[in-house]
């Protein structure tokens, strides 16, 4: 029996085991939404903007370790997805985005709601498709899911013209994939693995630098075993947070621009850096010429293009970090603790602290939340000072529990990502931590949370402005503050209440404890607004052009 390509699309999604899709309907995607009505397996979550649908799919993908799916109509629907797709690309998140397109006979004529979305997204999708023939749909969906989830994960877009979606075809889902131009390499080169193990065995002052690749590859166990076997301290990148338990004696926390002093100093003093699933981003390395000057570099990455792109590697290993770490582990000799471990312990003794003044400090809110949830919550964040404080002061002990926009730094990411995370792990406490700047970018998603009866928690740091940009202007513009204070902010408590969400505002230390208890125990959604000082800076801070061991406030 023949079915329409739109129905074939939905069936193909079912074949890929998709249970939830985040999206927003419109004209050109009408046939797809019509077919969606008949699906018993797929739940569609209607967000309040397409961008939120893309972020929700990304949050879902990262927590579930599955491909997240979002869809939108042509034109503005598709362009609204763009920020979410670029965010997923920069953080290597497997997302399949489906967009409606005007009919093939109209493409190129600038008709209503037409935009060249495959052209627009080519630079920040792993691959994309403009479907020209209806019978290609099953193959394209199969390929899209395969490309998105294998190798270095990333977003894939499928653009489906309306007339193609309405064409009837025989549905047959392919079993094989034939992509001669795409063959990700999974096993590391045995010789390179032996060289790496030998370097680790010889190293006096090794440091592991764990990146987002550990989280996405599910390599946390192998990482822990390797670190413990040879007593190697572990620093993480922002994306690598959670890959290594931060309550572990070998944990150095996060390194880089706002990293811990002990992580940055340890890397600078080390004689061997083992970068595992980290791409040496500029926020991680600081000035490249001063980065780990005494160290040999082992660089493990699934993407060959990352090897040698930012930092020259002495021992590059291309492949799946989980497999490679397991192989290295076999050849690494167990070691006792050494002088290096004593040195690390000494560095860690001098912990970095914020100045606790009479006002409610954002850092202490995170610390209190961390101890109350015992690292058992999934924390999503927006982008700004609050994001860095979460990275610094929340003790993450489990992988894939810190969900934040690292590479692109997208404000407005956290709330929709929290919705996606909640669909992936409904039993988990999911808390979005935000500032008043980023909260206002996607706050309409509170409606999505309510509509789906999600128990979503929000902690809002209200400083009536853009704290991290203000900090940058303090350092780089000689305190010439430009457009960083909001002249008007709404009453967020009333705003949340208008969505039917319980909300509370606090501005003193004495109220914090009870307020957090209330937030955590609430069955429904809850917004806790904390009034904080905009002059509170994020420290330590490495200035642009400085090596990472030169920290302000470290």
């Amino acid at each position, binding site marked *: 029996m023949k079915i329409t390509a739109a129905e074939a699309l939905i069936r193909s999604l079912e074949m890929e085991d998709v249970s939830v899709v985040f999206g927003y309907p419109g004209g050109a995607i009408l046939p797809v939404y019509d077919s969606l009505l008949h699906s018993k397996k797929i739940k569609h979550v209607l967000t309040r903007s397409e961008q939120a649908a893309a972020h929700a799919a990304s949050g879902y993908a990262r927590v579930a370790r599955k491909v997240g799916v979002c869809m939108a109509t042509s034109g503005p629907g598709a362009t609204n997805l763009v920020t979410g797709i670029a965010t997923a690309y920069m953080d290597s998140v497997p997302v399949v985005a489906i967009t409606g397109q005007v009919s093939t006979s109209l493409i190129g004529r600038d008709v209503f709601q037409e935009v060249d979305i495959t052209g627009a997204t080519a630079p920040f999708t*792993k691959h994309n498709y*403009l479907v020209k023939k209806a019978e290609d749909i099953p193959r394209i969906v199969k390929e899209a899911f395969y490309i998105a989830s294998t190798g270095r994960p990333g977003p894939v877009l499928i653009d489906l013209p309306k007339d193609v979606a309405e064409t009837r075809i025989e549905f047959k889902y392919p079993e094989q994939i034939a992509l*001669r131009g795409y063959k990700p390499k999974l096993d590391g080169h045995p010789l390179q693995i032996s060289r790496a193990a030998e370097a680790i065995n010889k190293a006096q002052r090794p440091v592991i630098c764990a990146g987002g690749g550990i989280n996405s590859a599910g390599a946390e166990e192998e990482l822990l075993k390797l670190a413990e076997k040879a007593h190697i301290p572990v620093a993480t990148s922002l994306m690598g947070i959670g890959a290594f338990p931060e309550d572990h004696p070998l944990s150095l926390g996060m390194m880089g621009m706002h990293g811990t002093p002990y992580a940055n100093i340890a890397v600078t003093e080390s004689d061997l850096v083992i970068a595992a699933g980290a791409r040496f981003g500029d926020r991680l390395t600081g000035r490249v010429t001063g980065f780990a000057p005494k160290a040999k570099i082992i660089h493990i990455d699934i993407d060959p293009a990352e090897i040698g*792109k930012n930092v020259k590697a002495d021992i590059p290993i291309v492949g799946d970090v989980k497999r490679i770490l397991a192989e290295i582990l076999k050849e690494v000799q167990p070691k006792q603790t050494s002088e290096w471990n004593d040195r690390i312990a000494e560095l860690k003794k001098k912990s970095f602290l914020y100045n606790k003044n009479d006002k409610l400090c954002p850092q202490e809110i995170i610390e209190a939340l961390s101890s109350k949830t015992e690292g058992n919550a999934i924390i999503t964040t927006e982008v700004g000072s609050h994001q860095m404080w979460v990275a610094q002061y929340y003790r993450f002990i489990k992988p894939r529990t810190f969900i934040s926009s690292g590479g692109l730094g997208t404000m407005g990411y956290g709330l929709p990502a929290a919705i996606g995370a909640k669909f992936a792990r409904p039993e988990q406490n999911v808390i979005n931590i935000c500032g008043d700047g980023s909260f206002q970018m996607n706050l309409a998603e509170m409606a999505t949370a309510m509509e789906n009866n999600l128990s979503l928690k929000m902690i809002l740091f209200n400083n009536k402005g853009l704290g991290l940009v203000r900090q940058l202007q303090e350092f780089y513009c000689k305190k010439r503050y430009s457009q960083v204070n909001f002249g008007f902010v709404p009453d967020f408590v009333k705003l949340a209440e208008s969505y039917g969400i319980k909300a509370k505002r606090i501005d003193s230390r004495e109220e914090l404890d009870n307020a957090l208890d209330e937030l955590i125990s609430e069955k429904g959604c809850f917004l806790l607004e904390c009034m904080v000082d905009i002059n509170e800076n994020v420290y330590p801070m490495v200035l642009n052009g400085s090596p990472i061991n030169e920290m302000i406030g470290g």
Partner: protein
Amino acid sequence: MKTTLSVLVENHPGVLSRVAGLFSRRGFNIDSLAVGTTENPEISRMTIVVDGDEYIVEQVKKQLNKLVDVIKVSKIIPEESVSRELVLIKVDAEPQVRSEIIHIAEIFRANIVDVSRKSMIIELTGDKDKVSAFEELLKPFGIKELVRTGVIAVNRGTKTIKIEEEE
């Protein structure tokens, strides 16, 4: 430093824009790009001359390989390959200078493919240096138009750039 890359790609619409887009996005400079189908109609071959140091060329190769539509990227070594470019030049040719131009064309083994009362079109193939030398000689007569195809190249001998067929 100029490096010639031979790139086998899927013969799909949009592939050229993906490749060209990659160069502009990553800030790589293309000297020339020539593309056409191969003996297998499903596959096109691009010859790209890249301007950049070893690091840039390495990045270009790796980034090209990341494109799903790119099947194979190979570096062409000048000493072990033959490279050619075709150029069409429309040159001012009043009757009194015509024979002189024809003489130059003969020396370069170029063909005159069109003659009008005041101009002629000359077709020349050769490597970059030959084409440039020819252009220099014709300049004094007045070049009205010049079109080059961009370099194409193949390895000498039996060495070929082909996709590895799978069993």
